[in-house]
């Protein structure tokens, strides 16, 4: 939360700075084009970039520093240093070798990655570009480019810096750019140069160009740019429309000429290259706790032993030679010092209690899970888009097994973001015979039943699912209102910001639209015979059929005079156009509420019928828009246009001024009718949600949609809500609030809303608590809109909201901004301390994806921003079932087992040494040889636990899906709670006792048949053998599932110990002055005790665990135990994970609509969803999103349903690629 606050604060500060008038000089950048000398005074940064972390000199110090920032490494460094001092009981090499190994591996990896980055930078910096120097185009490497240079960029090459677009070879000074590096969108966007600079295309002209650019300081906002170009005495406003960003590439244009404005690290794309904060899983954070506990145990053991050693040391033990020449550690004259030094001895001796290989092992397990299972699961492979699941991080696998809250975006995630023109109402008549799924569900519920008049899929056009002959093929001419019909179609064909692409034929054209709604509307116009096929910056061409008379076709050019942008405050969009015959019309489409406010008082006979129709559409789950027009008087228009132009070139508050001006002309409208668009659900969504709900996961819908649409989706499609639920609706759209708003006092409005929200929240909470006490089983649902949420998230109300929402089964937040999505997520994450997962597809979900414990992006159709910010990317919402219930659950199970096992094996091992030292006068003598001790963790017990971590599986994957309830174990953290760890700890203590006393007792009294006695190292080696055998065999009790890999690794590890022991005892180790272990293993293996002990000790040690496992299964079986038994009895089909290499068609899940529809929704279904308006980068700054201007090209690019996936896949990574990602 703090991050968000500070970010928004910073953003505000930045804006303040940017617009502060008094220090204009500081906060403006002045660039003299084509004038190197003059620009030198500003010392702009060069264009060379460096993304490396280190250089040759800093690599070692910085790299080592990074390594030792990890606590474990630092700890082992300290141990290594300690072991080089005389207090150490072990050879320093034995501690240093594993540490050096671990660190050098990490350093090599770092160096390699940095080298790659360096090389990449070098390639980028030396890419050639044409720069105008001394009046000629010179080929220069990118790094030599400076601010103010005029450059020429050719087709298909990348822009070397942020350029101000001057001229292009295309007519009208436009060019097309591809921005896939910036936002992942592959469609082309138009940029348009200022008319004044169009002709500086060739060398001769370009070298004459003398201009001064005043613009904002470098910043990271990709979609804003404010500045002026001063040529001679003319001052021209410059907008993002003239800015070509580094990272984009030029398409469909031979070449362009531009001036470098921002270079190198000051380009917008580089300023955006931020480090995504890496997430750590909750389990891993818990692991830190565990390590801390191990540290405490270590400390306690060392403390006890060192105190005792101080007491023990005494000259009476003459054989210790304590009389003369005694080093401090054994000097009975200073017992305190003895204790202190012995403490260090014990820290060194007991250091294996901290598992050095734990992090490495977990890392390996997770990487394996990710690369081999998640990324290759055919059940999560979407064939249509050729998209497999992608885990972008391997840190969070086990977190997937503990998710309790899912925050889902609606559009594109739950729904397909495939809008189909479904119905319409023109002049008070409803057209369109289709029946929506929601209506079908409602009908089924009421028992009326509608005959399935499944319209034959006759040449089903994308975006168009309309079936009514009355409007098709010119039949509308016979309808009651043919004139209105004509206006309706023209409005659809003209009032939009769609870009046509491809051949200008109805069958081949592809519409690039800002939102799929727009595409649907334009497509509808095409189907009705008003084919929009060409857009120039000033006009739109429409091929109209049946206008004059049936069957006649004609091309009509409408001159577009003004476009009044859509944004989320205006909720409408207008186009002022001139007919070829000079008729001046304003076409407007928008939300019913805004349109109705602006209708002419009279001359609107269909106002009321249309409203009824809107409500009907809304009830059917359709998205509606109202269409209206207004004929303009030329004089009035001219006057208005002047104001408009003024507002457009304003440097400050441009958006606000534009809105105000637009208000002046968007009035006295005449209603044409309304459109209804169906928002298709994603495949398998209801089933998936139902399954997840059974698994104990709560799903919240957070959407930018309006209240009614959101509720509709929650009801009908996703079975999240039903009429049996008690609903709490907190909505700011009440009469009371509207009245206050009309008075225009912002402060008063805020107070009223705040009071209202507080009242509603408290009241709801009271009722919720009440109903919980009185009526069992009554489920609650909360619906809140973004505006109320803003107040509800205040610190005072936050607690109430949290309490209420946690009690609810379903929560729907509508009309929320990206920032609020993140805030809601954080509220649950930090407030309720539950594991959260956010899933979304668009740029507006990025903040929420980053805020949650786990962010999931929908990959495939949309832009890549959500995926870029996510931890996991899947192609379909329904794949969440597999991601969570199968992979997440198993990962959680495995990792918790691995961690617990590490805890046990290190604790047990160290405890044996502790027991031993009780018998050595607390001297810190090691029980095992030092190499045994240091290889224990990294060799003799390393591999089997990794195998278990990779392969363990409690129940079959089929049953994982069949019994989603098994997932609850993860939510309740059953496998990694303290109780489990305590049981492991008890087992560790018990085993350590057995493993120490049994071998040593056997040896103490024992003798061989030759009568010879065994010594200290014999006991140690024997005990160590027992430890290795026991610890490895313990895994058989721990795992649910034994493959040959288990057998190989477990017995292999035991064998590895023996082989090592044979070699180690067989040869004199020249490094080791004390040949303690020399020959030992052969001596003890020649005695019977060894063989008695090797059988008895592991059995006795494991008996307790065996008993515990048995009792557990018998008396308090876990759910998975029962399912295991069921599998054993009934058998289970072979269900290895199918991997993508052998793709098999996943069984189609039927689209099952089980929801009920609420009777309350007398809503009209307005929802022109344009999440793009809340851009990702803006949300990062915490700036209110509603006041941004978007040029047509930008708009048109935002929501594309078409995707050249082949292009995306085959493109080699372009330069600049890595700097963004």
């Amino acid at each position, binding site marked *: 939360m703090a991050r968000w606050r500070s970010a928004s604060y910073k953003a505000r500060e930045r804006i303040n700075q940017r617009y502060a008038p008094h220090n204009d000089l500081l906060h403006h950048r002045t660039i003299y084009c084509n004038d190197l000398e003059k620009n030198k005074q500003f010392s702009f940064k060069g264009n060379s970039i460096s993304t490396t972390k280190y250089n040759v000199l800093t690599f070692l110090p910085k790299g080592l520093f990074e390594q030792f920032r990890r606590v474990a490494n630092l700890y082992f460094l300290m141990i290594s240093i300690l072991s080089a001092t005389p207090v150490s009981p072990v050879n320093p090499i034995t501690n240093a070798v594993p540490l050096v190994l671990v660190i050098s591996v990490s350093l090599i990896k770092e160096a390699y990655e940095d080298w790659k980055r360096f090389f990449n930078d070098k390639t980028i910096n030396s890419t050639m570009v044409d720069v105008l120097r001394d009046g000629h185009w010179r080929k220069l490497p990118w790094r030599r480019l400076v601010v103010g240079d005029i450059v020429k960029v050719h087709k298909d090459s990348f822009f070397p810096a942020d350029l101000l677009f001057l001229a292009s070879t295309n007519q009208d000074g436009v060019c097309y750019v591809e921005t896939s590096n910036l936002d992942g969108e592959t469609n082309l966007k138009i940029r348009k140069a200022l008319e004044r600079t169009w002709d500086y295309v060739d060398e001769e002209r370009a070298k004459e160009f003398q201009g001064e650019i005043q613009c904002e300081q470098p910043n990271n906002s990709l979609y804003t740019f404010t500045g002026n170009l001063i040529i001679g005495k003319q001052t021209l406003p410059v907008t993002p429309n003239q800015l070509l960003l580094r990272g984009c590439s030029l398409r469909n244009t031979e070449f362009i000429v531009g001036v470098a404005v921002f270079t190198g690290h000051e380009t917008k794309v580089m300023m955006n290259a931020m480090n995504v904060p890496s997430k750590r899983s909750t389990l891993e954070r818990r692991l830190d706790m565990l390590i801390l506990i191990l540290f405490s145990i270590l400390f306690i053991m060392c403390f006890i032993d060192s105190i005792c050693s101080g007491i023990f040391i005494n000259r009476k*033990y003459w054989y210790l030679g304590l009389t003369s020449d005694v080093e401090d550690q054994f000097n009975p004259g200073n017992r305190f010092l003895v204790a202190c030094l012995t403490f260090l*001895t014990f820290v060194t001796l007991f250091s294996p209690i901290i598992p050095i290989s734990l992090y490495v092992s977990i890392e390996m397990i997770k990487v394996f899970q990710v690369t081999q299972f998640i990324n290759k699961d055919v059940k999560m492979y979407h064939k249509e888009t050729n998209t497999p699941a992608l885990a972008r991080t391997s840190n969070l696998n086990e977190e997937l097994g503990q998710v309790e809250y899912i925050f889902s975006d609606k559009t594109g995630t739950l729904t397909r973001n495939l809008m189909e023109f479904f119905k319409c109402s023109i002049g008070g008549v409803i057209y369109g015979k289709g029946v929506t799924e929601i209506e079908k569900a409602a009908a089924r519920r009421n028992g009326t039943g509608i005959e399935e008049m499944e319209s034959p899929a006759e040449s089903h056009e994308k975006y168009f699912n309309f079936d009514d002959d009355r409007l098709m093929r010119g039949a509308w001419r016979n309808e009651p209102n043919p004139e209105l019909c004509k206006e309706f179609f023209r409005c659809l064909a003209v009032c939009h910001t769609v870009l046509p692409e491809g051949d200008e034929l109805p069958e081949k054209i592809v519409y690039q639209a800002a939102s799929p709604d727009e595409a649907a509307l334009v497509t509808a116009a095409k189907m009705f015979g008003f084919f929009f096929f060409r857009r120039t910056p000033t006009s739109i061409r429409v091929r109209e059929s049946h206008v004059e008379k049936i069957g006649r076709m004609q091309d009509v050019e409408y001159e577009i005079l003004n476009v009044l942008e859509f944004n989320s405050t205006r909720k409408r969009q207008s186009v002022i156009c001139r007919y070829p015959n000079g008729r001046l019309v304003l076409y407007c489409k928008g939300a019913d509420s805004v349109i109705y406010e602006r209708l002419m008082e009279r001359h609107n006979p269909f106002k009321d019928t249309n409203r009824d129709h809107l409500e009907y559409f809304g009830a059917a789950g359709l998205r509606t828009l109202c269409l209206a027009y207004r004929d303009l008087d030329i004089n009035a228009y001219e006057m208005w246009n002047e104001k408009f132009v003024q507002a457009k070139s304003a440097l400050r508050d441009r958006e606000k001024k534009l809105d105000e001006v637009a208000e002046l002309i968007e009035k006295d409208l005449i209603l044409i009718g309304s459109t209804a668009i169906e928002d298709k659900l994603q495949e398998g969504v209801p089933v998936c949600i139902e399954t997840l709900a059974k698994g104990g996961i709560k799903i919240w819908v957070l959407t930018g949609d309006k209240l009614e649409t959101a509720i509709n989706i929650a009801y009908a499609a996703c079975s999240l809500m039903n009429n049996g639920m008690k609903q709490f609706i907190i909505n700011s759209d009440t009469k009371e609030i509207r009245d206050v708003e009309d008075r225009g006092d912002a402060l008063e409005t805020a107070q009223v809303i705040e009071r209202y929200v507080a009242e509603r929240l408290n009241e709801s909470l009271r009722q919720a608590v009440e109903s919980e006490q009185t009526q069992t089983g009554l489920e609650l649902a909360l619906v809140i809109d973004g505006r109320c949420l803003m107040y509800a998230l205040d610190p005072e109300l936050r607690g109430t909201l949290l309490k209420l929402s946690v009690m609810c089964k379903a929560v729907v937040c509508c009309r929320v901004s990206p920032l609020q999505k993140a805030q809601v997520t954080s509220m649950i994450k930090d407030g309720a301390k539950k594991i959260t997962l956010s899933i979304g597809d668009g740029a507006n979900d990025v903040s929420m994806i980053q805020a949650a414990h786990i962010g999931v992006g929908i990959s495939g159709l949309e832009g890549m921003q959500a995926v870029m910010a996510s931890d996991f990317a899947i192609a379909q919402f329904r794949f969440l079932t597999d991601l969570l219930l199968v992979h997440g659950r198993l990962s959680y199970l495995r990792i918790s087992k691995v961690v617990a096992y590490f805890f046990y094996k290190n604790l047990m091992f160290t405890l044996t040494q502790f027991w031993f030292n009780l018998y050595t006068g607390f001297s810190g003598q090691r029980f095992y040889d030092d190499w045994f001790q240091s290889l224990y963790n990294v060799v003799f017990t390393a591999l089997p636990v990794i195998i278990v971590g990779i392969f363990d599986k409690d129940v079959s994957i089929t049953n994982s899906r069949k019994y989603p309830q098994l997932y609850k174990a993860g939510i309740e953290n059953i496998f990694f709670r303290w109780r489990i760890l305590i049981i492991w700890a008890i087992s560790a203590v018990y085993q350590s006792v057995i493993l120490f006393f049994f071998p040593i007792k056997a040896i103490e009294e*024992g003798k061989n048949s030759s009568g010879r006695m065994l010594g200290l190292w014999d006991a140690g080696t024997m005990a160590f053998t027992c430890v290795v055998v026991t610890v490895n065999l313990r895994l058989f009790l721990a795992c649910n599932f034994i493959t040959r890999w288990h057998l190989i690794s477990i017995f292999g590890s035991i064998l590895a110990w023996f082989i090592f022991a044979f070699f180690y005892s067989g040869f004199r180790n020249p490094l080791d002055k004390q040949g303690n272990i020399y020959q030992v293993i052969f001596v003890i293996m020649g005695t019977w005790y060894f063989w008695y002990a090797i059988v008895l000790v592991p059995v006795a040690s494991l008996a307790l665990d065996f008993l515990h496992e048995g009792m557990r299964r018998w008396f308090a079986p876990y759910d998975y135990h029962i399912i295991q*038994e069921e599998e054993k009895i009934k058998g289970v089909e072979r269900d290895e994970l199918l991997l993508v290499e052998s793709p098999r068609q996943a069984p189609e899940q039927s689209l099952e609509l089980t929801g009920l529809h609420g009777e309350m929704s007398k809503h009209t279904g307005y929802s022109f969803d344009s999440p793009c308006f809340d851009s990702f980068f803006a949300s990062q700054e915490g700036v209110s999103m509603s006041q941004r201007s978007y040029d047509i090209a930008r708009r048109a690019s935002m929501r594309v349903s078409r995707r050249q996936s082949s292009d995306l896949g085959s493109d080699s990574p372009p330069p600049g690629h890595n700097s963004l990602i």
Partner: protein
Amino acid sequence: MKKPIFVYYQLENYYQNHRRYVKSRSDKQLLYGEGASLADTETCKPKQLLDDQPIIPCGLIAWSLFNDTYSFTISGNAVPVNKKGISWKSDRYHKFGNVYPENFPNNLPNNENGSLIGGSSLDLNVPLNEQEDLIVWMRTAALPTFRKLYGRIEQDLKAHTQLTAQINNNYNTYSFRGKKKLVLSTTSWLGGKNDFLGVAYITVGTVSIFLGLAFFIVQWKYPRPLGDISYLSWNQKPATS
């Protein structure tokens, strides 16, 4: 008692496994005993040099060599104790070389150990790999109570034979109140008598049988059908509430 009868001495409260003690030896010196390694007494503190000459064998362990001696008689007839072969072969061949003791402090006439403090002298004319008492002593014990092989009596002792042991009490254990014991024992092909392992085996076995029975009875009386999904937690909740 059938021959061979093993003679052991047992020391109690004697920390042969103390860290200062364990590390105070030089295996290099013991094995190679030539040139540089003779002087390699770095690890032998505090018994490394005598008048600036390296002690051979150096270190606390050798210096504190047990020096009580036992002799046995049966009704006046001496019973010979064979002290050959009491050490492990691997020690004799691989850990101790043909090295002769030198500058050994206990051999000095008025050595600091005195007559009652302990610390045996060594025969300077016998190489270390033949001085088996030293070899046995230097295989340090794991616990503060330990036995070490003294020698073998290679004749049968009949029941009710009165064996007289004469003990030269040289080794000082009074200062730390250590106990000394003399133990005679025989072995079988399996090794010596070992109460602990036997008891442990029987205990573990008994507990296993008992638990097996308990589980059997439980299953007999209160059977839980395997794989019955009505036992699943979510299937049970409605029943309990």
